[in-house]
């Protein structure tokens, strides 16, 4: 009984912490984020702004799937049975995202949003709770492509990028996200000497979104909400248990 009382009081304190210390600043940052204005690259400055354009490279890049891309990320997953559930582990990861330019019309700018030690988060579109924390650079290239590959008959581009691939325990899948050079991007960035850079003191460090920013904003919103959802569930179980115990205990006491 004491254990559950302590758990319940703990969950109440957690709820207060979640709402006052996490939710409120998170909502303020989120509100500031959706108010960020859109600007032209000529106006690139120290304050965060949204820019529409294209990402380009000096040399064309080809993904292991054979597509031309400005930047891409790929990885090989091993899906295997572990007890009653399926476990996934990443065996090999690679990508090309260096030496980029932001291009709008005939104007080109150096693009170094995530090239100075910033941590990036590639959004995979596989989870309705997928979140993006403000201290990471979000990269949303749309839904990822996935195909099953065989370990013994691995395609040559994958073999080159993952020469020492571990033998899988289950089924291998190759997953890839790529940005075509003709695909428009929306970028949240700051500028320094006409170079696109991250925004350390802004509501978000920055992001690159292909075609639309809706999913990125949703991921920022989920970052605020996920903690609250977890605390609510914990509270529902612990308070539910405490209330039923209290009602039952006091009823039997009254009956006796």
């Amino acid at each position, binding site marked *: 009984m004491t254990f559950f009382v302590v758990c*319940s009081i703990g969950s*109440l304190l957690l*709820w207060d912490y979640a*709402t006052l210390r996490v*939710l409120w600043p998170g*909502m303020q940052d*989120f*509100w500031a984020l*959706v108010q960020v204005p859109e600007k032209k690259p000529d106006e690139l400055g120290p304050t965060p702004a949204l820019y529409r354009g294209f990402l380009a490279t000096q040399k064309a890049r080809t993904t292991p799937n054979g597509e031309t891309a400005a930047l891409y990320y790929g990885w090989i997953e091993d899906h295997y049975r572990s007890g009653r559930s399926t476990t996934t582990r990443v065996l090999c990861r690679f990508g090309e995202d260096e030496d980029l330019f932001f291009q709008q019309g005939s104007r080109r700018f150096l693009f170094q949003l995530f090239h100075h030690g910033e941590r990036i988060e590639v959004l995979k579109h596989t989870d*309705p*709770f997928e979140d993006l924390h403000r201290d990471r650079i979000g990269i949303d290239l749309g839904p990822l492509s996935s195909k099953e590959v065989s370990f013994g008959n691995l395609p040559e581009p994958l073999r080159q990028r993952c020469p020492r691939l571990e033998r899988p325990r289950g089924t291998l899948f190759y997953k890839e996200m790529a940005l075509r050079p003709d695909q428009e991007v929306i970028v949240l960035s700051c500028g320094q000497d006409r170079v696109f850079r991250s925004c350390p003191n802004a509501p978000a460090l920055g992001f690159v979104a292909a075609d639309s920013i*809706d999913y990125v*904003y*949703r991921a920022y*919103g*989920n970052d*605020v*909400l996920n903690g*609250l*959802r977890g605390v*609510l*569930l914990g*509270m*529902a179980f612990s*308070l*539910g248990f*405490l*209330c*039923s115990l*209290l*009602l039952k*205990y*006091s*009823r039997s006491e*009254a009956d006796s």
Partner: protein
Amino acid sequence: MTAWWIDAILALFGSWLGFGFFFAARTRTQRRQARGGRDVVGLLVMWLGLLLALSALFVLWTSLAISFVLHQ
């Protein structure tokens, strides 16, 4: 929208549980008061149940507020 339907299910579950406890405890408290007794535990459960229900509705409200901000 920000997975609002998941939050709607969460809110439904939380408020069903919370209001369930609230009304069960209220009925019991009223019965005991009618017999001239006091029911401190009933009041405590009422308060906790209400807190749970309002917290669940708060999550739904926050989720809808975020969705509204995104779609305005």
